[in-house]
C-alpha cells in the first residue's frame, strides 16, 4: 500500500463541437494518448473512474467496453463541473487504501445535441424566477464592482489573457486572440457579462493514468501532493465570507504542505471571467478584493502564480465532465516542462481548482482543489 500517488501519464482530445463523435470515440482518443504518455499497456490498469455529467447511466461501463478495458471495476462520478477532479480524488483514495495500483481516470462530455448555448437547470425556486448560470456569476461580478471597484475592463482582461494563451493550445476550441474592445462590444448575456466573458460549451475527453508506484517510463514523475473537496452549504449564496472555496484551498494546501506563495502554475475554473478573479482571491494568490488587479500578474507572471496557461475554459471550452482532467493535463505538462510556448520556467508546484453547481441554493455542488508537485 502506497501513500504516494503519481500522475504517470495524461492525454486529451481536441475540444470543441464534435457532433459526429460519441463519448466512447472521444474517450478512446484520450485513453490511448494517456497510456502512451505513461508508457504502460492496458493490462497494467486495474480500475476505471469516469467523470461525466450529462451522459446516459452506465456511461463509464460502456466506455470501458469500447476502449478495451471491459471487466475492470468501473465507477461513474457525477459532481457537476468538478466530476473529473472528483474522480481523481476518488482514484487516489483507492490507491492509498490499497484497493488499486494503477487507475485510469477519465473525464468525458458531449454537449453537442444536448444544449444550444445555455445549460438548462432543473426547476427550483431560483430557476423559476429566471436565474441562469451566467446570471449567478453576473450577480457576483456586479457586487465586486460596487465593493472593490472592479471595472468591466478588468473582466475583459481575463478573456484577453486567456485567449492570447489559448492561441498556443492546439487542443483549445478557440485558438485566436481577441481585444478588450471586442470582448466589451460582444452581446450581453447577463449584465455586465458579455458573450466573450462566458466560456463556450464543448465536447471532448481527457484522461490520466494514476499510480501508487513511481512510474518507471517517465523522466519527471508528477506527484499528487494533496487534495480536498467540499460541497456548498445551504446559505445565502452571496452572503459575505461564506465561500467554501477558500476552505477547500486551505485543506488542500495543508495536505500538500505548501502555501499559495509556492504555487507556480494554476488552472482555475473560469466558466465566467469573474470566476477566475474570485479564484485568485480565494486561493490566496492576492488579497480579497484585489482580484481585478491580479489579472495583469497572472500572465506574464513574474514571481506570481501563472494562471490558466492553457487558455482556460474561456479558450478550451467547457465539457463539464472532462474539464477537471483537462486542467490536470495542462498542470502536469507544465510541471514536466512540456507545455510549449506558454511554459512557466522552473514550475515545481501546480494546482487545479474546479467547481460548479446546478443545485442553486448551494454555493457549489462540489469544489475540488488538487496540488501537484515534482
Amino acid at each position, binding site marked *: 500500500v502506497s501513500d504516494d500517488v503519481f500522475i504517470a501519464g495524461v492525454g486529451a482530445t481536441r475540444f470543441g463541437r464534435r457532433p459526429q463523435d460519441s463519448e466512447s470515440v472521444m474517450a478512446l482518443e484520450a485513453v490511448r494518448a494517456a497510456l502512451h504518455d505513461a508508457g504502460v499497456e492496458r493490462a497494467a490498469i486495474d480500475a476505471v473512474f469516469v467523470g461525466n455529467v450529462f451522459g446516459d447511466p452506465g456511461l463509464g461501463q460502456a466506455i470501458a467496453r469500447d476502449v478495451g478495458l471491459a471487466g475492470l471495476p468501473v465507477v461513474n462520478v457525477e459532481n457537476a463541473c468538478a466530476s473529473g477532479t472528483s474522480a481523481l480524488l476518488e482514484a487516489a483514495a483507492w490507491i492509498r487504501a490499497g484497493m488499486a495500483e494503477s487507475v485510469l481516470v477519465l473525464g468525458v462530455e458531449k454537449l453537442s445535441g444536448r444544449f444550444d448555448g445555455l445549460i438548462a437547470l432543473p426547476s*427550483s425556486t431560483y430557476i*423559476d424566477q*429566471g436565474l441562469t448560470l451566467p446570471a449567478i456569476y453576473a450577480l457576483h461580478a*456586479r457586487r465586486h464592482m460596487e465593493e472593490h471597484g472592479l471595472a468591466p475592463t478588468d473582466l475583459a482582461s481575463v478573456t484577453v489573457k486567456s485567449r492570447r494563451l489559448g492561441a498556443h493550445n492546439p487542443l483549445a476550441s478557440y485558438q485566436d486572440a481577441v481585444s478588450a474592445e471586442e470582448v466589451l462590444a460582444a452581446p450581453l448575456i447577463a449584465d455586465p457579462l458579455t458573450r466573450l466573458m462566458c466560456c463556450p460549451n464543448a465536447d471532448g475527453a481527457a484522461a490520466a493514468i494514476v499510480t501508487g508506484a513511481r512510474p518507471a517510463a517517465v523522466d519527471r514523475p508528477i506527484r499528487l501532493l494533496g487534495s480536498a473537496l467540499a460541497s456548498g*452549504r*445551504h446559505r*445565502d449564496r452571496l*452572503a459575505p465570507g461564506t465561500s467554501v472555496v477558500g476552505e477547500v484551498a486551505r485543506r488542500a494546501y495543508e495536505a500538500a504542505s505548501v502555501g499559495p506563495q509556492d504555487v507556480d502554475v494554476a488552472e482555475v475554473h473560469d466558466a465566467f471571467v469573474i470566476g477566475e478573479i474570485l479564484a485568485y482571491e480565494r486561493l490566496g494568490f492576492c488579497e480579497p478584493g484585489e482580484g481585478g488587479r491580479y489579472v495583469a500578474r497572472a500572465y506574464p507572471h513574474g514571481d506570481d502564480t501563472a494562471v490558466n496557461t492553457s487558455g482556460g475554459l474561456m479558450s478550451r471550452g467547457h465539457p463539464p465532465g472532462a474539464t477537471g482532467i483537462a486542467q490536470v493535463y495542462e498542470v502536469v505538462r507544465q510541471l514536466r516542462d512540456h507545455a510549449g510556448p506558454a511554459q512557466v520556467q522552473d514550475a515545481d508546484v501546480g494546482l487545479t481548482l474546479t467547481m460548479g453547481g446546478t443545485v442553486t441554493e448551494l454555493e457549489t455542488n462540489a469544489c475540488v482543489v488538487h496540488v501537484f508537485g515534482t
Partner: protein
Amino acid sequence: MRFPACLSCPDCGAPMEPAELGGVGRIETWTTVHRAPPRFETPYVLAWVQLEEEGLRVLARFTGDGEPRLGAAVDVALAADGDDALIVATAAGSSA
C-alpha cells in the same frame, strides 16, 4: 429561517414550518438577464434583496424605471405569473 423553503433544516434535519416574510428590503446586487430559457421573455432584471426584518436574502424580479441601485430600499411581494408566482421587487413606496 431559510429561503427558499426547505423540507427540513439543511444543517440538522429539524422540522421546518412555513413562515410569512416581511416585504421590505434592500438591493445587494443585480443583473439584467439578456439570454434565458425560452419560457422567459428577455430582458429582465434580477435583484438580490436582503429582507430587513429577517436578514434573509431573496432573489426577486426588479420592476420599475431605470437600473436598480445598490442599497436602494425595495418592496417585495408575490405577483401572479400565469399559474406560477414571481417574487417582484419595486422601489420602496412606488408599488400600487
